[in-house]
């Protein structure tokens, strides 16, 4: 561990002390004050945590062990493998880290446990983005696609039907989310980019890329179609068959013309494509842009006038979990929302679900840079201590309200998903 991250930790401890009085009523505090690991009973508290590496931080599991005595065993897999494992082997994990749009596929399998909202201490403080589809200031945000509030509640403890109104049975407790847009290489493009249409602009022939997940790739294409005025969708995340045909036709033309260099399927690939100059414009994730930039290569997470495509992930619990393990799972989720982890996520360029607790764990400068769109007073550091931005820098896209407020649609699984995947295969074969 580097020196700076130790420093980081002691800062967060102090912040934690300040915060305990206010919001965080957790046993976690005692461990943090004495600095001794919090040791519980005889049985080691172990939770198997299945997810992608993006959200699995080494520091998070260490801090969690220190505060709660729960040992997190990460099971790291690709996004696709994670969802498949949920269907095929619900016995191989306890806590699942997944996205809301996957729930439409995962809940019908009956392998997801309905969490009790009353046992989640900070549930009422979760940002209204998830519960009501609006910003903390009351502004409504885009609801196209599988927006979290559409799949947050179940009708009953063993129900497989999503409830339109709030119930106490929660599918997935939100932890992290973001607003995605196109990443660009300003040094190679050399002109301002302001619209999604640029993704399919022949100027960038052979230098564009999208995500290789059909249901998300087609939404990026839909953003282009809509931006260029060819069609306005009622819901880009839930297209009709003719809309799918139209969007695929436009994508097929682009593919035949050689617009796409490659479709990327994981975080690392998106970084490599951009950093090596294989692509100059592509859909991307915020930390991937940060990574490219930290290598000394110019890269911008470009805000576009048509808005962002958003995603959100969080924790589910496997139906196979019961007894004390279930209590630990609640304890873990409660710890996660209590602020330290939220601050950790915010520092990577993501957003945390409970803003108040995360704020208590960040410096005013960090909060200003990441959340309020202010210029950084000091250098901005990643959780591991590496410098991400020099003092004076401002975040691409501005504040939380600016970015989340401009969300146009959410990652989705469509009602016509089966048709869409068939069309996608046709598109690949074209």
């Amino acid at each position, binding site marked *: 561990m580097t020196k700076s991250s130790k420093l980081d930790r002691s800062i967060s401890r102090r912040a934690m002390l300040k915060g305990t009085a206010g919001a965080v009523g957790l046993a976690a505090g005692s461990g943090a004050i004495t600095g001794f690991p919090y040791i519980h009973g005889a049985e080691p508290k172990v939770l*198997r945590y*299945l997810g*992608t*590496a*993006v959200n*699995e*931080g*080494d520091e998070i599991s260490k801090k969690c062990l220190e505060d709660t005595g729960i040992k997190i*065993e*990460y*099971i*790291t*897999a*690709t*996004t696709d*493998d994670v969802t*498949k*494992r949920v269907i*095929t*082997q*619900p*016995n*191989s*994990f306890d806590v699942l880290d997944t996205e809301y749009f996957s729930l439409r596929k995962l809940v019908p399998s009956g392998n997801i446990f309905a969490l009790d909202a009353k046992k989640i201490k900070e549930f009422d403080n979760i940002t209204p983005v998830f519960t009501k589809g609006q910003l903390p200031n009351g502004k409504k945000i885009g609801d196209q696609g599988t927006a979290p509030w559409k799949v947050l509640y179940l009708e009953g403890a063993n129900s497989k039907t999503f409830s339109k109104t709030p119930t106490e049975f929660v599918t997935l407790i939100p932890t992290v989310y973001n607003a995605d847009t196109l990443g660009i290489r300003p040094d190679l493009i050399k002109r301002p980019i302001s619209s999604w249409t640029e993704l399919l602009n022949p100027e960038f022939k052979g230098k564009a890329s999208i995500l290789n997940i059909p249901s998300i790739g087609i939404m990026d294409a839909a953003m282009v179609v809509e931006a260029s005025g060819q069609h306005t969708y009622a819901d880009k995340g839930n297209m009709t068959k003719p809309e799918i045909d139209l969007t695929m036709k436009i994508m097929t033309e682009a593919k035949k013309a050689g617009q796409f260099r490659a479709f990327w399927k*994981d*975080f*690392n*690939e998106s*970084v*490599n494509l951009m*950093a*090596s100059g294989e692509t100059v414009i592509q859909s991307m994730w915020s*930390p*991937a842009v940060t*990574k*490219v930039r*930290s*290598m*000394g290569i110019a890269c911008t997470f470009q805000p576009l006038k048509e808005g962002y495509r958003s995603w959100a992930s969080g924790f589910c619990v496997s139906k*196979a979990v019961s007894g004390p393990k279930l209590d630990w799972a609640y304890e873990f989720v409660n710890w996660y929302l209590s602020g330290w982890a939220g601050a950790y996520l915010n520092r990577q360029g993501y957003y945390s679900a409970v803003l108040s607790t995360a704020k208590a764990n960040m410096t005013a400068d960090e909060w200003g840079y990441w959340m309020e769109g202010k210029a950084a007073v000091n250098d901005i550091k990643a959780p591991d201590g590496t410098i991400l931005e020099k003092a004076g820098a401002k975040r691409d896209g501005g504040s939380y309200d600016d970015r989340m407020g401009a969300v146009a649609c959410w990652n989705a699984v469509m009602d016509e998903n089966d048709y869409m995947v068939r069309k996608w295969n046709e598109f690949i074969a074209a």
Partner: protein
Amino acid sequence: MSERRPRSFYLLAAFFSAYVLFLYGPMFAIYILSFQGPDGGLTFPMNGVSLVWFGKVFSGSGIVDIGAAFKRSLQLGLVVMVLTVVLSVSAGLAFRRSFRGATLLFYVAIASLIMPSIITSLGIALEFRLLDDFIIKSGAANWTTAMGLFTSGLGAHLTWTLPFGLLIMFAIFNRFDGRLEEAARDLGATPWQTFRHVVLPIILPSVVGIGLFGFTLSWDELARSSQTIGSVNTLPLDLQGLTTTVTKPDIYALGTLTSAVSFLVIFSALVVILVLQARQRRHGSDAGKGMV
């Protein structure tokens, strides 16, 4: 070797060298990029030169314990290697006589090669899920799962390595001179003695080859393991998992180290063998003559 090499030797040696160069193509990029500077990425341009990534391999890269995964994959690979050799040689012997189900076994082996690994993986996962459900229903309260590295994982790997082992045995036993075994039997050797002292020494180098093949296939297996490994990953799965976040040149350093250690081991083994052979020659034994 005293006789002069024919011209074709040099041509073919050049071809072979070109092939080896081709094999190592991506490895060169890995070797060079593992010396990236602390801020460097997985692609060119180089961002300074350093040894930090080698340090990172040993200190662990955080989320996944590469060392532990390395050990798990090594263990699994070695078990798969031994089983592949034993089962393939045994079945290979069986195919030299005709037996009921020979054709079936042959086509099953072929089908196991054809079936896309992810589907086989899924099938095994389904099977174990049914097994788990059955065990839980029969009253095992604290049962979690029968899945694991050496149950479903091992089985999945064997469905991948055994077809190779079996078919290579076909190549080995093709036109194998049966008279040697007859002679041994005529001299009163038991079937086991015939195998142990006559057949095995002849096929041994090829059998070592099958072992090597089996190990390498298991070591690098990805898709078949993906749904069958339970809650602990193999090394390739962990590495693939890492690509879902910021991936750093430490994985290249791991590649460079693997190659370096392999080269070192093979080179030392070669030196030992050559020294031993030279000594044998000097002592006038004829045992090593056939080797060179």
